[in-house]
C-alpha cells in the first residue's frame, strides 16, 4: 500500500524544518544560561508569616520529585541502576519515571546532548510544570565531557536549560547521583514563596 506517501508534509519538508530548528537553536545558544541560584542569597527578605507555609510547601515539593525520562546516552544506565533494585530511588519519593514531561518536575540529563537532540530537550523542559529543577548528570551534562570537541555535541546542558545541580563523573555512580538528589532537596528546602517568581 502506498498510502504512507500522502502526507501533508513530505519527509524532506520535515527534515528541512527540523534542520532549521536545530540551526536556530544552535545559533542562539552559544553562551551558557546562568545557574538559577541567586534566590539562595535572598535569605533576609523572608518574613515570619510565611515560614510555616514554606515549610509545608518545600516538604511536599522535595519529597515527591518526579523525574521525566531523558535517557540519551551511557549515564542513563547508571540512572536506571539508581532506580532499580539495589539503590532504590523510590526511597526519596521518586517512584515513577514519568513518560510525560507535564507530570514531572525534575529533569535528570543522563547523557550526551547533541545539537540534533537539543530542541527536543528544550521542548521537554518548557513543557514541564513549574516549579521545575534540572540535574546535569555526568561530565557530558556539565561540559560535554570527553566529546566536548566534537562537531555535533552541545558543550553542557546549561547552554539549553538552567541547571540546578551538577553531578560529576563519567558516569557518576548511583551513589553520586543520589547525593546530587540530596543536594537538590536541600536547595528546594531553602526556597520561599516570598521570593518566588522574581
Amino acid at each position, binding site marked *: *500500500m502506498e*498510502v*504512507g506517501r*500522502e*502526507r501533508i508534509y513530505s*519527509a524532506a519538508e*520535515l527534515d528541512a524544518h527540523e534542520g532549521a530548528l536545530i540551526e536556530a537553536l544552535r545559533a542562539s545558544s552559544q553562551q551558557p544560561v546562568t545557574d538559577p541560584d541567586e534566590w539562595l542569597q535572598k535569605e533576609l527578605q523572608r518574613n515570619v508569616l510565611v515560614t510555616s507555609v514554606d515549610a509545608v510547601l518545600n516538604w511536599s515539593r522535595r519529597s515527591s520529585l518526579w523525574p521525566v*525520562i*531523558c*535517557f*540519551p*546516552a*551511557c549515564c*542513563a*544506565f*547508571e540512572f*536506571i*541502576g539508581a532506580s*532499580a*533494585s*539495589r539503590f532504590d530511588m523510590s526511597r526519596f519519593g521518586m517512584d515513577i*519515571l514519568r*513518560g510525560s514531561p507535564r507530570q514531572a518536575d525534575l529533569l535528570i540529563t543522563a*547523557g*550526551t546532548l*547533541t545539537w*540534533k*537532540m537539543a530542541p*527536543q*530537550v528544550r521542548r*521537554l523542559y518548557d513543557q514541564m510544570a513549574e516549579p521545575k529543577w534540572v540535574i546535569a548528570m555526568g561530565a557530558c551534562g556539565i561540559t560535554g565531557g*570527553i*566529546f566536548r*570537541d*566534537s*562537531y*555535533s*555535541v552541545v558543550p553542557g546542558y546549561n547552554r539549553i536549560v538552567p541547571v540546578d545541580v551538577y553531578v560529576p563523573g*563519567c*558516569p557518576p*555512580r548511583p551513589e553520586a547521583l543520589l547525593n546530587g538528589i540530596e543536594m537538590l532537596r536541600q536547595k528546594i528546602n531553602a526556597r520561599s514563596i516570598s521570593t518566588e517568581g522574581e
Partner: protein
Amino acid sequence: MALKTEPFVLNIGPLHPSTHGVFRLLATLDGEVVIDIEPIIGYLHRGIEKLAEEREYQKDIPLCDRLDYVAAMSHSMAYVMAVEKLLGISVPERAEYIRVIMVELQRIASHLLAVGSIANEIGTFFTPFMYMFRERERILDLFDMVCGQRLLYNYMRFGGVSHDLPEEFIPALAKFINQMPGYIDEYDQLLAENEILLVRTKGIGVLPPELAINCSVSGPTLRASGVARDIRRCDPYSIYDRFEFDIPTRTAGDCYDRYRQRIEEMRQSLRIIRQAVEQLPQGKVNSQVPIRVRPPQGDVFVHVEAPRGELGFYLVSDGSEKPYRFHIRAPSLINLTPLREMIIGWKLADAIVIFGSIDIIMGEIDR
C-alpha cells in the same frame, strides 16, 4: 463489512520510554496496524569516528567504551585487538584469559538487559527487569573490583589489560558462576512459559534467514533466524578455539526466539567462563607497550562477536601517532536494516516489541 480507515502518521520519539534511548520512528498507521515506518536516527551522533582520528591511539580506548555502553569490554577489546594486529604484538596468556572472562561476563550483563527490556516492552513494566538488574549488579560489582568502574571500564590495553585481577576476584566470580544457572532457571520459570509473553512474542516479527543474510544482520538476531554465524567459531580470535561451547540457534526467527536465543547464549557464556577460570595461567598481564604507539602504515579489519552482533574495527594507519581512519562496523546500526519488513503489517504495540527484540544501543548506532 469492515469500515475503511484513514491512515495517519504517528511520531514516536526521540525521547520515548520504549525506544531504548533517542530513536525516532515515524509510523504510518491504518487504525492500529503499521503500514509504513521510517526510522530516524542521529540524535546521539557524537562524532566518535572523527574524535578518534584526532586523538592518539591510546586515548581512543575510552571512546570505544562509550560506543556501546552496556558492552564496553567487548568494544574496547575489539579495538585493542585491531591496534595489536597493526603493531604486530602478542598478548600474554594470562591477559588473554582475563579478557575472555571479562568479555563473556559482559555478554551476560548485556543479554540480561536485553531480556529484561523485552519483558518490559510487553507490558510487565519493570518487574522482570528488577530480577535481571539484581544479577547485573553483581556482574558490575565484579567489574568494579577489577577496574574501579561500574559501566565504562577502560580496562583493555595494547598488549594486555591494565592490571591483574585482585585476590578476591576469583572467589567472587566462582560464587557468581555457580549461582547464575539457578537464576537463569528462575527467569525461565517466570517467563518462558508465561502466557502473556507467548501470546505477545510467538510468531511476531519474523525475520526470515534469507532476508537476514541479505541485510547483513548479525549476532543473536541472526542466529535466532537459524543462521549459525558466530565470529567466535567461524573466524576464531583471541583464545576462543581452546574452549568447548555451542553456538545455539533457533528456527522461527520471531521475537520469542530472539528472547530464547539470548537466554541460551548466557548459558554458553557461563560455560566459557568456567573453563577459562579453570585454565587461567599465572604470569604477566601486560607486555609493556609504550603509551604512544606508532603502528606501521597499513590497514586492518578486526571483527569480534559482541553481544549485539558482529563488531568490526577498520583502522588505517599512516605511520603517525593517530589513526588515519577509524571506522566502526556497528552491529546495532546494521541490524536495523530489515526493521521495515519486520514491523509492517503488525500492530503498533507489536512494533515496539519487535523493535525491542532486536536489542539496540543508540550509542553504537549513532556513534
